[in-house]
């Protein structure tokens, strides 16, 4: 964490992540073009620029499906978190591949005439009728550009989390446009059904995972719907590992992380003030709750970042009854000090 914005807050995990992403993209592109040149010969031969266009286009679609599946998958298994944590890097890489695809299309199909290349590709080919599938791709690329351009902490801080998230929900509009782009474009000229089948599988996976994750969240919200004014039973003290947390889910998608440290317990909002990372999956380091995503820290007793940093998170009251922990679901304003509940000699309650 820092009191100045950085280009990228590099750490070992990010470096490995980016290495794998870039290596995979380059490997895919070279394999696609190489296999295409070897297998498509004679009457079926396809020029290298067209192979490159197809390689970039298919690579972008595969990346987009992976990106869209990460979120809902992470609701089911923590193993996906390794992909979730730096998803923005994957998103920007996807945009670069998609933009390169568009650039190549405009240059190859529209760059050798007298008309403006962009107009030529987007409009010229369809002046006589037909579906302007390139326009779907163009609109999708505009949305992806806005998303990639605002994938930095500065934008999250200055647009506000709600507006920023709403902006990035545009990925679903862009995804629909991309599917239309492929259906009315590449699939119309394909005689073999394999591409349509693969796209269909991708769409079913994205929709199915989102639906399953949504149903799971709805079910969880219903089970915790009684958590209004009453103190909530978090569980046994012994079930909370030292320097770790147990996460409790409340109404309205709120969740609380109850941390155990130095013979005491403190409860804070589960969402990091930085980018909403799951604090409950982090641990206490140097006396501070440490977010597993980017290392932002908070003092457990007050939800404030240690000076000179100014981030704050909501805090909650805790009570110990016998060997169980009780949580008051009413959040205190972010940065409010709350006395930790002492594990040894905890007070009995009525």
């Amino acid at each position, binding site marked *: 964490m820092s009191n100045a*914005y950085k*280009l990228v807050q590099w750490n070992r995990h990010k470096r490995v992540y980016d290495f794998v992403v870039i290596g995979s993209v380059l490997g895919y592109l070279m394999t696609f073009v190489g296999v295409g040149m070897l297998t498509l010969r004679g009457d079926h031969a396809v020029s290298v620029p067209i192979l490159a266009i197809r390689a970039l286009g298919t690579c972008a679609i595969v990346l987009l499906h992976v990106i869209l599946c990460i979120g809902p998958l992470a609701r089911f298994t923590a193993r996906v978190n390794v992909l979730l944590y730096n998803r923005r890097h994957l998103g920007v890489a996807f945009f670069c591949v998609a933009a390169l695809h568009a650039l190549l299309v405009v240059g190859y199909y529209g760059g050798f005439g007298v008309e403006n290349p962009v107009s030529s590709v*987007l409009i010229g080919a369809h002046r006589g009728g037909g579906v302007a599938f390139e326009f779907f791709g163009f609109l999708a690329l505009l949305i992806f550009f806005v998303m990639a*351009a*605002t994938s*930095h902490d500065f*934008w999250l801080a*200055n*647009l506000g989390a709600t507006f920023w998230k709403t902006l990035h929900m545009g990925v679903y509009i862009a995804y629909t446009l991309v599917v239309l782009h492929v259906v009315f474009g590449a699939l119309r000229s394909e005689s073999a059904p394999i591409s349509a089948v693969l796209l269909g599988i991708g769409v079913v996976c994205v929709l199915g995972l989102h639906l399953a994750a949504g149903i799971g969240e709805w079910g969880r919200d219903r089970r915790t719907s009684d958590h209004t004014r009453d103190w909530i039973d978090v569980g046994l003290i012994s079930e909370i590992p030292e320097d770790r947390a147990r996460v409790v889910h409340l109404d309205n998608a709120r969740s609380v992380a109850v941390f155990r440290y130095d013979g005491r317990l403190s409860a804070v909002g589960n969402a990091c003030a930085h980018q909403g990372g799951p604090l409950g999956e982090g641990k206490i380091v140097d006396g501070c709750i440490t977010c597993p995503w980017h290392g932002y820290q908070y003092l457990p007793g007050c939800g404030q970042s240690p000076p000179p940093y100014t981030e704050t998170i909501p805090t909650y009251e805790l009570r110990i009854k016998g060997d169980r922990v009780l949580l008051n679901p009413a959040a205190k304003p972010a940065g409010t000090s709350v006395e930790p509940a002492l594990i040894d000699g905890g007070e009995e309650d009525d």
Partner: protein
Amino acid sequence: MFDFILLMVAFYALIGVVASGVLVSVGLKRIDPVLRSSSLGVRLLIFPGCVALWPIMLFKWVSVERKSA
């Protein structure tokens, strides 16, 4: 219709480039003081976002100046 949409996008982007030049040089530091201690690379990285969202950032800048006036 497509011609018109393309023209509008081009105009928006052109105005965005000019506005972003001013924003990145002056305005953004007024909106977010944390940017003052950030590198030139960060401001260049923010430039494309300013081109995309220049109306919002100009509005924020004006609001900040009015509040401080």
